């Protein structure tokens, strides 16, 4: 029962996130194109205010020592600094983002809206992930 509640809570958070992204049209290739053509402030405002809200939340959590609902201290870890991987991988991800208009969350939301298109994106993403698994040790990090 506890496990079920745990799973349900993540699903609900996913639903929350997906509704906001979809209503903001951030899942749309058209909005992403518009962003890369600098034709609208919408996506920049969206990302900027999301980051500002996230940063402010982290500051408040730290400042007031806010604990989790399980009364544990909240620890925020930094991802390892591997600039070659972060940068080159980032460019490759960006190529896919620009091409399809989808980053990871929109990819899954699109899968729900139009499974024929979504499944192509997902199969691609899983192939790409597998390819990375194969090449990982040969790539600069």
């Amino acid at each position, binding site marked *: 029962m506890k496990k079920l509640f745990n799973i349900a809570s*993540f699903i609900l958070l*996913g*639903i*929350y996130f*997906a509704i*906001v992204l*979809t*209503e*903001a049209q*951030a*899942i749309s290739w*058209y909005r992403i194109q518009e962003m*890369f*053509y600098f034709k*609208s402030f919408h996506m920049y*405002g*969206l990302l900027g*205010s*999301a*980051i*500002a*809200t996230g*940063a402010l939340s*982290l500051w408040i959590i730290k400042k007031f020592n*806010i*604990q989790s*609902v399980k009364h*544990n201290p909240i620890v925020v870890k*930094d*991802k390892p600094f*591997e600039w070659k*991987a*972060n940068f080159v*991988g*980032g*460019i*490759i991800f*960006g190529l*896919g983002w*620009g*091409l399809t208009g989808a*980053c*990871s*969350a929109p990819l899954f*939301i*699109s899968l*729900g*809206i*139009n499974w024929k*298109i*979504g499944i192509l*994106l997902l199969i*691609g*993403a*899983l192939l*790409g*992930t*597998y*390819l990375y*698994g194969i090449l990982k040790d040969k790539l600069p990090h």
Partner: protein
Amino acid sequence: MKNEPLAWYIAGPLIGLIVPLLLILKEKQFGISSSYRFFISGLTKKPGYFNYKREQDAWQFYFVIGLILTGVMYGVNGYDLNALKTTVVGFGGGDVIHYVSTVGFYDLSNWAIFLFGGILIGFGSRYSNGCTAGHCIMGMSQFSKTSLIATIGFFIGGLITTYFIIPFLR
């Protein structure tokens, strides 16, 4: 269907709120693309990258289920991914935009774009160790150098496809 998006100054903070929500309610740092690794590791443990403590990423799988379910809800209510084709065109140039404004980008004739783009998304997000969720939103909120570098990469890649690849596809 309405074509006006939820205003950025409302939607943006709501997106950012996912960071404290996940931390306070679930003690998790926001991210999504680790779910790809989780999926593959359920199928195979080779190469070694997929032989890891996959339970740590299980929550992203559940989160993703929520994303898909939401998509289904929009889908059955007739949500059209191409709804913006007549409103958000007129930017950029070239034949692709003309093509898109008539047929729409979300068309199965573009299957190769979706598949190949998907490969880049999967490969790139694992190589850079995060996507727009983990780097752009979570990492940038932490002022992480790692995520700043990745985010700059995301935009360089996006600009390259937008100006140098998509206009030549059709």
